[in-house]
């Protein structure tokens, strides 16, 4: 006991630098800052050298970093206490969106709170996995079947509220973030495989309930060439941009496809194509390495975390980040359907970046608020 105390005391003293006082994890911050710098250059290039857009992007990055710093100060046990209330608030807001949300582009995703417009589903990206983790943190892992069932019900209920907005893409991704908690909590393999089989079987039924525009997206995904003037145009142009980048790329500001306006949404959903065109396969591999580095660091933080709540939250947030990266890159390279999803830490745009940086703040808090002795 005595020895241990001295040891931890040593460890404590050794690490107590500037970053520790701020509750920042240096490695994670390094990866994030490298990605954000790349993002700023890309936004500048993809917008054709638009200074206004680049300036706004930098402002948003600054704001998001500040939020990360704030959330890193909140100890996980405080977050744990607030989790059920945040979930309740999130559910109420989702219901409010359905009842009197602002209808933007045919879907009511925004809640108009006077000066700010707010997207409750963005909040749920964080709060749902936290809630499921909160639920499972009450007992030993793996959780009982009853708890697993309750968790699955909460996930389905939340996703259901978002599906009716209607926003199928977001609802699937949010459900996914909750399911990762189930997975990390020790959901038995037989249930996982059973669920995969059941999903495959139920696909035709889902197809039946899709909106016409969603069906159209799936169809053009399967064969983009059939609709070269409409949604297929995006994928075709994106593939041309990526492929023509070759191994070395065309150089910074050298993306002809984005600059001649062939490539749509070049600063947001399709920013990866600009990177691939300008920096080639080498740039792509570097970027993916950076993502692997950040995710790996996040999963390491999860492995070192104390308590089931921290573990489950950290690991599921990192896997959610991975899914976003994979779906976006898969989309722009023609592996997955066009779902209109930004590339985390790269795309121009505010709310997704804010959510993501908050989740990094939570991770840093988990890593830096460990108790020396816990019982």
């Amino acid at each position, binding site marked *: 006991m005595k020895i241990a105390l001295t040891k931890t005391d040593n460890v404590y003293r050794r690490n107590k630098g500037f970053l520790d006082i701020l509750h920042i994890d240096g490695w994670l911050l390094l990866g994030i800052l490298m990605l954000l710098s790349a993002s700023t250059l890309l936004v500048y290039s993809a917008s054709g050298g638009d200074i206004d857009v680049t300036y706004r992007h930098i402002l948003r990055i600054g704001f998001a970093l500040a939020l990360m710093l704030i959330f890193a100060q909140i100890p996980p046990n405080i977050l744990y206490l607030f989790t059920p209330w945040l979930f309740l608030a999130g559910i109420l807001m989702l219901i409010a969106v359905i009842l009197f949300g602002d209808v933007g582009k045919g879907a009511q995703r925004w809640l108009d709170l006077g000066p700010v417009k707010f997207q409750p589903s963005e909040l749920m990206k964080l709060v749902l996995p936290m809630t499921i983790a909160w639920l499972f943190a009450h007992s030993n892992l793996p959780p009982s079947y009853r708890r697993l069932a309750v968790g699955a019900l909460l996930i389905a209920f939340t996703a259901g509220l978002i599906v009716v907005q209607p926003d199928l893409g977001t609802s699937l991704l949010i459900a996914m973030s909750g399911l990762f908690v189930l997975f990390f909590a020790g959901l038995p393999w037989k249930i996982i495989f059973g669920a995969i089989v059941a999903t495959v079987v139920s696909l035709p039924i889902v197809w039946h309930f899709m909106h016409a525009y969603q069906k159209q997206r799936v169809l053009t995904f399967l064969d983009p060439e059939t609709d070269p003037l409409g949604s297929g145009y995006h994928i075709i142009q994106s593939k041309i941009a990526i492929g023509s980048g070759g191994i070395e790329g065309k150089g910074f500001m050298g993306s002809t496809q984005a600059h001649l306006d062939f490539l749509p949404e070049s600063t947001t959903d399709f920013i990866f194509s600009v990177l691939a065109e300008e920096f080639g396969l080498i740039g792509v591999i570097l970027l993916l390495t950076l993502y692997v580095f950040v995710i790996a660091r996040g999963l390491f933080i999860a492995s070192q975390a104390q308590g089931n709540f921290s573990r489950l939250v950290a690991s599921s947030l990192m896997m959610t980040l991975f899914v976003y990266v*994979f779906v976006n890159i898969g989309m722009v390279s023609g*592996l997955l359907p066009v779902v209109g999803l930004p590339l985390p830490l790269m795309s121009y745009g505010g709310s997704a970046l804010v959510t993501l940086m908050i989740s990094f703040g939570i991770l840093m808090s988990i890593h830096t608020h460990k108790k020396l002795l816990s019982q």
Partner: protein
Amino acid sequence: MNEHLEFNSDAEAQAEKNLFRNRLIFAFLFVLSLFTVLIGRMAYLQWIDFERYHLLAEDNRISVETLSPTRGKIYDRNRLLLADNQPVFTLKLTREKIEDLAEIEQHLAKLLPNFSESQRSKFFDKLRKTSRSKTLLLPYSLSESEAAEFAVQSHKMPGVVLTARLKRTYPFGASGVHAIGYVGRINTKEMSGLDERSYRGTDVIGKLGIERYYEDKLHGEPGIQQVETNARGRVLRKLETIPAVPGKDIQLTLDIKLQQYAESLFTKHKRGSIIAIDPRNGEILTYVSMPTFDPNLFVDGIDQKSYSGLLNNPHKPFINRGINGKYPPGSTIKPFVALGAIEKDYISPTKKIFDPGYFEYKGHRYRDWKRYGHGLVDMSDAIVQSCDTYFYELSLDMGIDAIHDAMAPFGFGAVTGVDIPGESKGILPSQKWKRETKGLPWYRGETIISSIGQGYNLTTPMQLAKATAILANGGKIIQPHLLRGQELASPQQIEIKDIKNWERVIKAMRDVMHGAKGTARRHGAGLPFEVAGKTGTAQVFSLNEADYEAENLDKSLHDHALFIGFAPVKNPKIAVAVIVENGGSGSGTAAPMAVNVIKEYLKTNP
């Protein structure tokens, strides 16, 4: 180690930790393998298939352009053009092709003296910061001589191209702007509510009136054009085209000549509304809200000076008085109250009441407008001479709820459903209304003043016109509308107990105009047709808009002048409601305006 101290006492915790660690390892392997898939995909596109995509990119000269649809035109009932699309000249600037922006700015300043300096510097600021490859349109329409001058000098301005586009114009200018509305630039808030696809390539949207209400019809669907471009993105050849579907032309029920005439009647008084409806089908013939303003100013964005001039105009031209002006209806509601009373047997039409010039209730004297009273009056006399005392006494027998029930079928206190966005519903008071909105019980004294259209009563000119039309057509609840062909196939009918009661009320309204004692007899005299009408003078108790300079006016001019009427009495073709803000008396100001509108209309539509 720390972790051992923490957990070795608990085997379960260790098992838990192992489980989690295994899952983490599995997840990380999952991440790595899927990223490998992505790298494989990229290697396939960028390495193996590089040649193919390289050629495609070099050859990527097929670009897709949006063809914006032509907005539907708006016609009046006689097919006169109310909203048109006129080709105008403007300049297109591409930053990439311009070497010296400051030089171009100077050239343009000389060339276009009417393009204000603030707008110019704002535009060039935007151009400086925007994407190099973007092309921006100058927010200014060149006159023909300016366009010709530009053509001569264009060699000095590379990257600036003369182009033609269609601009919405309103040939009748300010006339009927509150009904027709106008289009303006789409703002960010509107953009977020729009279907991106169908508004690609469109930069204006209906902001007000018909232009906004029938946006879906007028807008059309954009087309798509594949064009071949050279390596710098310049269009060489047009390939496949899906043509744009132009918006639908629409015809209104409005008679723009009659509208102009009605607006011209506002000379001495500046503010008010005249609405004329065909009582047979609900077609709106004129929709006057005065003062008006020129919609052409708004199409390309209004300059700050003109806008603040309009905004600060003491007569408030932006208020759409026809549907949003809420006025105490005054005596114009008397025919409706009287009809309700005799239909429901609250009073016999022949019963006479003595009017000493006031009505006393609980020690309070409610005055008649005529100081020494009207003497013995029956229902007909009470309407013809607009006797207040008769209605004071009748109202206590009826009670507020019976008055409410008599008037509600005529559309008071509810939106009329006219096809202009943002209609107000006014107030038709009842016990329930007061309890729900004010949380207070109803007082009998309030019933007394309600019976002459004062107190809580508030109506819009559109409601008055609709009610008058329903009275004129024998209880057919028509739907007032501006778009031709929108009349109800089978309108509801107000329940009639005895048609003679309706005839009595209409006869009394005829006598308002043509009887020996009618309040508006001097305006009914000598007409080639018979008019039924009712004057109203609504007291305005609070003038909160101090900038009306009301204190300089004669006291009586504080009152709003009202008139409702229809003609010909036997077979009504037009029903009119007139409100003149602070116009004085209904008989002096509003009645002659209504009669003139009717006369003008029946001249061409006998």
